[in-house]
């Protein structure tokens, strides 16, 4: 009941014209970055971090939430019309969505994706509203040892689950942890990994790393390939945007199942959106009355995964808001934005900045409505965006990237660092290393070190504190399981 009262207060704040406008801009920009290849919500939010000096926190986070949800919506358009997912979570949508477009049913595919995203996004936000206060109560029992173990679990899970190789995932994580150590140690004042450069004393900004890895890295990779010189062939926007009674009947259960898969998996460390979309696709394939249509353009194969994708976006926000632990690259960048405002995330956020949190949650409900209105009628506009020739598209993306980095402090050193991270991003893309663990490692390593030190100070230097406290021991045991289980399973299968 208390949560509902707080949510009503959040709605009152989110429905003020200024906040609503920021939410609208966020949804618009989010859909655009979801549609455009080479851009994603993590990169876009990172680019907008310099704005945190000028815009109130509530407006900024409402916009960021709009970008996050909007990108999840927008990704489906390229999957369906271009067979090229704008983001990894939309890969599954392209399997059936593009086949529907080839059959002249692009409109229906886009409609079920948009309505499913709305339904699942709303269910996910409702679950966030109801579950978050309980998680906060549990999190209040966490001490530094538990936080350290939780961060270890989050980092290990991201590295183990993302990408195709555990070894490459762990190397990416190690690089992120190392980069996170650059700068002055806040407890002792000693310089670490600075090479005597005063520009590195404050550490490496997440904007520089995120934008370099994702935007410049992607542009370098594509220019290395030399294949993206013309816009790709688009499918015609065929078929009605209205769903028939048959389409509704086949879609609604898939939306609900997708939502119930997406939220809990999204809320887990490293759950992300890829796993629930895949699970949703296979669930629909198993339950459908029309198995012969799968692989040829089954509407359930679009409805379920798109719903799972959007519900997982709400799920990812839960550990960020309640525990202060990011479980995706976008959440890591958002955490950096919270830090920029001097706001401490975690259970205290719900007491110290309750108005901000509930406005943010309320804005997610409103954002879902805005996105439903934006997505379907404006689909023609989104299609036109895909016709921008790659040379001008990437020129624009890199210029905006430079603005995002240069605008934070007019530092030419940071622009140089941006291109260094771009080269790292290119190598990681080419040799199949996942990029998200680098960002999570970068942001979590100073936090994990601080928690470790606090835990050891409390325990008077006893390392056993991490395994004698039950919650901490449990979290560490799960981390070890995640590392060891795949190898053991492989050995058993042999």
């Amino acid at each position: 009941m208390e949560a509902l009262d707080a949510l009503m207060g959040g709605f009152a704040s989110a429905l003020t014209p200024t906040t609503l406008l920021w939410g609208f801009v966020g949804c618009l920009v989010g859909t655009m970055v979801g549609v455009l290849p080479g851009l994603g919500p993590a990169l876009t939010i990172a680019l907008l971090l310099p704005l945190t000096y000028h815009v109130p926190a509530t407006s900024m986070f409402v916009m960021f939430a709009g970008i996050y949800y909007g990108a999840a919506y927008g990704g489906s358009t390229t999957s369906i019309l271009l067979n090229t997912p704008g983001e990894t979570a939309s890969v599954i949508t392209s399997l059936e969505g593009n086949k529907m477009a080839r059959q002249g049913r692009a409109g229906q595919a886009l409609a079920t994706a948009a309505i499913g995203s709305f339904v699942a996004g709303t269910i996910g936000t409702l679950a966030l509203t109801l579950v978050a206060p309980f998680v906060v109560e549990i999190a209040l029992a966490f001490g530094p040892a538990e936080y350290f173990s939780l961060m270890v679990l989050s980092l290990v899970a991201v590295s183990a689950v993302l990408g195709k190789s555990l070894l490459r995932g762990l190397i990416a994580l190690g690089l992120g942890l190392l980069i996170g150590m650059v700068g002055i140690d806040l407890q002792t004042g000693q310089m670490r990994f600075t090479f005597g450069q005063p520009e590195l004393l404050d550490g490496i900004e997440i904007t520089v790393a995120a934008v370099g890895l994702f935007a410049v890295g992607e542009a370098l990779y594509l220019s290395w390939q030399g294949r993206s010189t013309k816009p790709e062939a688009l499918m015609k926007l065929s078929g009605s945007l209205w769903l028939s009674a048959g389409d509704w009947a086949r879609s609604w259960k898939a939306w609900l199942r997708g939502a119930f898969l997406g939220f809990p998996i999204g809320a887990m460390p490293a759950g992300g959106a890829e796993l629930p979309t895949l699970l949703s696709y296979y669930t629909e394939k198993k339950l459908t009355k029309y198995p012969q249509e799968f692989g040829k353009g089954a509407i359930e194969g679009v409805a379920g995964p798109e719903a799972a994708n959007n519900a997982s976006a709400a799920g990812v926000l839960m550990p960020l808001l309640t525990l202060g632990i990011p479980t995706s690259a976008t959440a890591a960048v958002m955490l950096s934005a919270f830090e920029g405002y001097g706001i401490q995330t975690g259970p205290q956020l719900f007491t110290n900045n309750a108005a901000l949190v509930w406005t943010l949650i309320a804005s997610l409900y409103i954002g879902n409505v805005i996105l439903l209105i934006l997505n379907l009628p404006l689909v023609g506009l989104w299609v036109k965006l895909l016709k921008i020739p790659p040379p001008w598209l990437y020129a624009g993306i890199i210029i905006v990237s430079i603005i995002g980095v240069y605008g934070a402090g007019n530092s030419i050193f940071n622009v140089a660092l941006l291109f260094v991270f771009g080269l790292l991003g290119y190598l990681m893309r080419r040799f199949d290393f996942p990029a998200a663990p680098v960002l999570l490692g970068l942001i979590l390593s100073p936090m994990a070190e601080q928690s470790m030190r606090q835990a050891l100070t409390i325990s008077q230097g006893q390392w056993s504190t991490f395994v004698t406290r039950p919650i901490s021991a449990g979290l560490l045991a799960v981390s070890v399981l995640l590392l060891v289980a795949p190898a053991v399973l492989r050995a058993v299968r042999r």
Partner: protein
Amino acid sequence: MTPTRVGFLLISLCLIACWQVLNIPESAIQMAVGPALAPASIVGLLLCLAFLYTLSAWRGRQVDEASEPSQAALPGAAYRMLALLSGGVVFMGTVSFAGFVLPATLCGMLIARSFNATLGLRSFLICSCISTGFWFLFNPMLGVGIGPATPFGF
């Protein structure tokens, strides 16, 4: 570049990091964990992983997109990448005295060149429109300080 070379690159990076860890001074403050423990642990872990990766790459078990025909680079890859990186260098070299728009335009032209657009008037006009548009959006409208548009202070 091959996966084995990437492995050697990682090992070299770890060795440089080891040298930096050895340069971290001991803290005068009495505490359970000093400033070098976490960096040393991370570098140690990364060094082990880099060795494993190099060994695995040497045995041919690591992937390179260049070896897949559908993903491999077309001829002129080094030239295209150099054009893109030159865009960044030109921006860094000129932004301190030429305002924002001209360096960003030149940078944009070189990036477009890396995607096989020709360097010419059309490219200059499109990139100057992009950089001027973004300067207006970010500097006067959103208040992000990216300096004056031109060297003449406006």
